[in-house]
């Protein structure tokens, strides 16, 4: 048992050490810059969209392959699993309020 606890303890220590080594000030700067670039790229994509696509040009867009979510049942299951198993809100833009994720 003691050996097991020592192993567990050293695993956690290693994880904490890795985290401290990873999350340094330069890394924090890099992440915040990456986030800014990402948001800027989204804004550029947004401005690209000013050209209007007429209804008769939307054959590909209306295809099932172009829908963001193809399957309501699978989305429900994934949202439930991902929101419970991660600290995040899960999924990509569900309007449902975050549940407790208990169980």
């Amino acid at each position, binding site marked *: 048992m003691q050996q097991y*606890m020592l192993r567990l*303890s050293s695993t956690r220590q290693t994880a904490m050490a890795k*985290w401290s080594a990873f999350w340094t000030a330069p890394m924090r700067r890099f992440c915040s810059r990456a986030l800014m670039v*990402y948001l800027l790229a989204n804004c550029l994509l947004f401005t690209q969209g000013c050209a209007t696509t007429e209804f008769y040009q939307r054959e590909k867009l209306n295809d099932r*392959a*172009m829908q963001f979510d193809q399957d309501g049942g699978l989305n429900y299951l994934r949202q439930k699993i991902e929101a419970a198993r991660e600290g*995040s809100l899960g999924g990509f833009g569900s309007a449902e309020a975050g*549940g407790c994720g208990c*169980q």
Partner: protein
Amino acid sequence: MPVKTMRHRAAHRFVTIFLVALVVSYGSCIFAQQTDNNAQLDIFVFNQEDHGGNKIQNEEMLYVGARASAKLKVNKVLTIRPTISGALLYAGGKPDVPSTITNATTTSASQRSSNRAGGKSDYTPVTTSMGFDIKPIGSDWTLSPGAFFSWQDNYVSRGLDFSASVELFNGNFIPSFSYGFRWDSLTAGKLGLSGIFGVMGEEGEDGEGGEGEEDEGEGDPTVERAPPINQIDTRWTHNFQFGFTQILSPEWRLNASVQYTLQHGSLSAPNAVLTLYDQNKVPVLFANEKLPNVRNRLQFNTRVRFSPLTGWGIGADHSFYIDDWGIMNAAIEPQVDGYFVPEVALWRAWYRYSYQWGTRFHRGHPTHEYRYQTDDADLLTFSTHSGGALFFFRLARWGELDWNLRVSGYAFSRSDHILGYGGLVGIEFDW
């Protein structure tokens, strides 16, 4: 109660829920007009294995259920969207409780842990919602109020939702706003049916592990006594989401949103414990998880899809999450869509990678209690690989009615050795 009897009772509940789901969803079809309608019935199973994470809390789980949903156009203005799902959830299992824990059978917190050591607990979660889409004639606005209710033996959630969207520039740009409210009641015992109103019923008072309340927490005076096992904790959630969908060209579609969630109330899990260690890092005591009563959560989502050929598509979803407990999470999910036979046999495959930076309330090997402390494996640092595939088959067309079949598989693996896999089979009618 014998395990066999409990299983029979759970199976009986599941069949009842399933039949109610069928009647509610398909019964409402009679109100529908013959256009733009859809009804779905799904059966799913998901199994989760725990080979790591928090050794004290076993996160094994078997989740089997059914979900019925429909989208029914009542008239030119109103569309209704009822859903109901019921499931059997076998959760928990035998955790590794070190023999050096001196209060393993004396404190309320550890009582809960040792109750879980007795094997799996079964729950019967039932979730139902009703949404309305109201689109006034001649207007580009869609208003969508809705209501939500979910019941599980130890957890009840009620809620209201509202969203609004408007089609601008010939539908090329659709901004939207959503608000959702949830009022949750949780307990470490069993709520019973009266839990719907946030009141503990008789079943809860006699719930498992109630004897633990006699305990005086004699293991260590510094370890706070756990709240009574029949206490109901309450939490409130407000969820705001702003976003837009933009058609960039005849081949490109973009969706972006920002989601802010405020939770307050009791945010610790009622049955969660963590381990305290001595100077030699030997586990000696159990203590209760303690987390702040407020949590501010922010998530950015971006989804892009591109179609090089009709019937084919590629896409990528991204999310970035941050909250005031120190958790950050970034995820990316590329997808590919194609067909075996155009419009008859289609497929989608996806892969998702996420990395989570854990909460600052995880204390490693604490030798004393902190104001806030947790060992919840889901709030720590880990990465997740997941993926799956979805197959869609148009089985038959009877006049205006399409009969479709959907089959999908889904699996994930976490770097802390928690993994899960499952599948779903669904039938779908469009008319």
